[in-house]
């Protein structure tokens, strides 16, 4: 008969209406600022620069190679290479970025910079509350703001961080072995690495 379906529908919506007041499982909404869903490990949002140790400038893993800048699809990364060199995470002398800016409003969270980085220097963050009331300065993040310690990386992406640490340790061991071999052959060359090796060891924790 005409109207049967309407009556059924009305009953169904009434059940939803009343039910939503009595059973909390009906409501799928998470009341965001007060309630939050736990983040899954693969969450990624925006890149940050990893540094080792306590001093972000000394421990910066980035060597300013500009691969990420070239690969970035929306071109949101801007890098200027430094003139001088400093030892990097594995202990080689490398350049470091004098300027490293990322425009938050342009970044599309594709993770390509992370994929292409050969130095394990840029990683994805999970921080997503990035809104600001300053359209120009507030959305362009500089080196200081982008840098975060390796410990933080270990906290937000434990599995990935462990893999990355292992890789770096392996490379560092290789470099040290090479340095040792070089030291044995050239016994009197004291200019090269003793301070470098120690700094690398401390920063590796």
């Amino acid at each position: 008969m005409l109207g049967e379906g309407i009556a059924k529908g009305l009953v169904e919506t009434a059940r939803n209406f009343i039910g939503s007041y009595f059973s909390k499982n009906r409501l799928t909404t998470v009341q965001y600022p007060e309630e939050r869903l736990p983040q899954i490990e693969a969450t990624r949002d925006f890149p940050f620069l990893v540094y080792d140790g306590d001093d972000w400038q000394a421990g910066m893993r980035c060597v300013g190679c500009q691969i990420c800048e070239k690969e970035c699809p929306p071109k949101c990364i801007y890098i200027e290479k430094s003139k001088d060199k400093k030892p990097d995470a594995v202990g080689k002398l490398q350049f470091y970025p004098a300027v490293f800016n990322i425009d938050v409003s342009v970044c599309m969270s594709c993770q390509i910079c992370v994929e292409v980085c050969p130095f394990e220097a840029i990683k994805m963050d999970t921080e997503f509350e990035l809104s600001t009331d300053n359209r120009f300065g507030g959305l362009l993040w500089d080196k200081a703001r982008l840098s975060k310690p390796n410990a933080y990386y270990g906290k937000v992406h434990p599995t990935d961080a462990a893999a990355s640490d292992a890789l770096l340790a392996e490379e560092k061991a290789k470099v040290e072995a090479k340095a040792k071999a070089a030291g044995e052959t050239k016994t009197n060359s004291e200019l090269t690495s003793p301070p470098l090796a120690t700094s690398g060891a401390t920063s590796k924790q």
Partner: protein
Amino acid sequence: MGETADQLFVTLQHWLVGYAPASLRSILSALLSVIAILVVFALLFAITTVLERKGLGRIQNRYGPNRVGPFGFLQPIADGIKSLTKEDIVPRAADKVVHFLAPVVLVIAAFSLYAVLPIGRNMVLANLDAGVLFFFAISSVMELTIFMAGWSSRNKYSLLGAMRAIAQMISYEVPLILAAVTVIMATGSLSTVTIVERQAGYTGILPHWFVFTPWGFAGFVLFMIAATAESNRSPFDLPEGESEIIAGYYTEYSGFKFALFFLGEYLGMFAISGLGITLFLGGWAAPLSFLTWIPSYLWFFAKLLVMISAFIWVRGTLPRLRMDQLMNFAWRFMLPMALLNLVTAGVWRFLPQGLLRWFVCALLVVVPYVLLGRGLAQGWRLEKRVYRFAE
């Protein structure tokens, strides 16, 4: 006690008017009533918007607005501030004057509908002899404003929305008026006050409302369906059809003009619900004889809130009709039902009181309903759809 509470606002008005010089008294009295109507119904609009959003949310298992103020009940204030501070954009090709006039005239027409609604005992702005006719006359003006809005925006979606709105409103005006005519036949009057008075009195504890007769019930249902279509509400919201034509005739309206359209639409809905209450639900009368001590205006607004909730419930339940379904429903179901209901009301009037009258009239309502329902359903061929590529 009950008497003073019931006539509180009437006495207040008399008392206030008493201070004015004699020549200004009638104007002042009218002015006070108008201000009261403006304030009360604008407030009701604000409450309804938040109730609707919360109600729809709950129906869809969401919370709805719950941030602004306690339980989100200050949301309309935030909305109002927002729409006031928004830029008022008028399309360059639009007809500026008509574009501006449309929402203004709509709201004026919507407010003037309340002139003939008896909100409580002795609480009607204008007790016109032809009150119901006045109501329908003014609501027909609203169709024109919708056309004005749609045409002046110089936008194909606006024009499409306006055409749909007018086609729909003209089609449903016929069953709307025919459903109302049954009551006019029964009371022999077009005055809303007289119609309410004719429904006064109780048998035992039950009131003599027209909705409690076979023709009255059918008339009420027909009236409310047509009223839903008249006020362009879901499931008859084709003129807005946001999934097809953006927002229909008010696509090109922004800021406070948009808010005015919103207001006008809701005011129209309240007014037509108010008319339904007046015609079929005994106006401001209490539903049970021992509840008459509660002031009459409270009963009116209680009934109005029930109607609004029903509107929200229906909106949360039914999907939008298609244009051909809409027209089929109007002309192949609503119109014949309304005409037969007219006959039923006549039969009821001339048969002697008793069970026979009930039986005959109920039969006269139910049989056509079933038959017409079947006729309407004949065109429906619900088959399982076969997809060529998706499967």
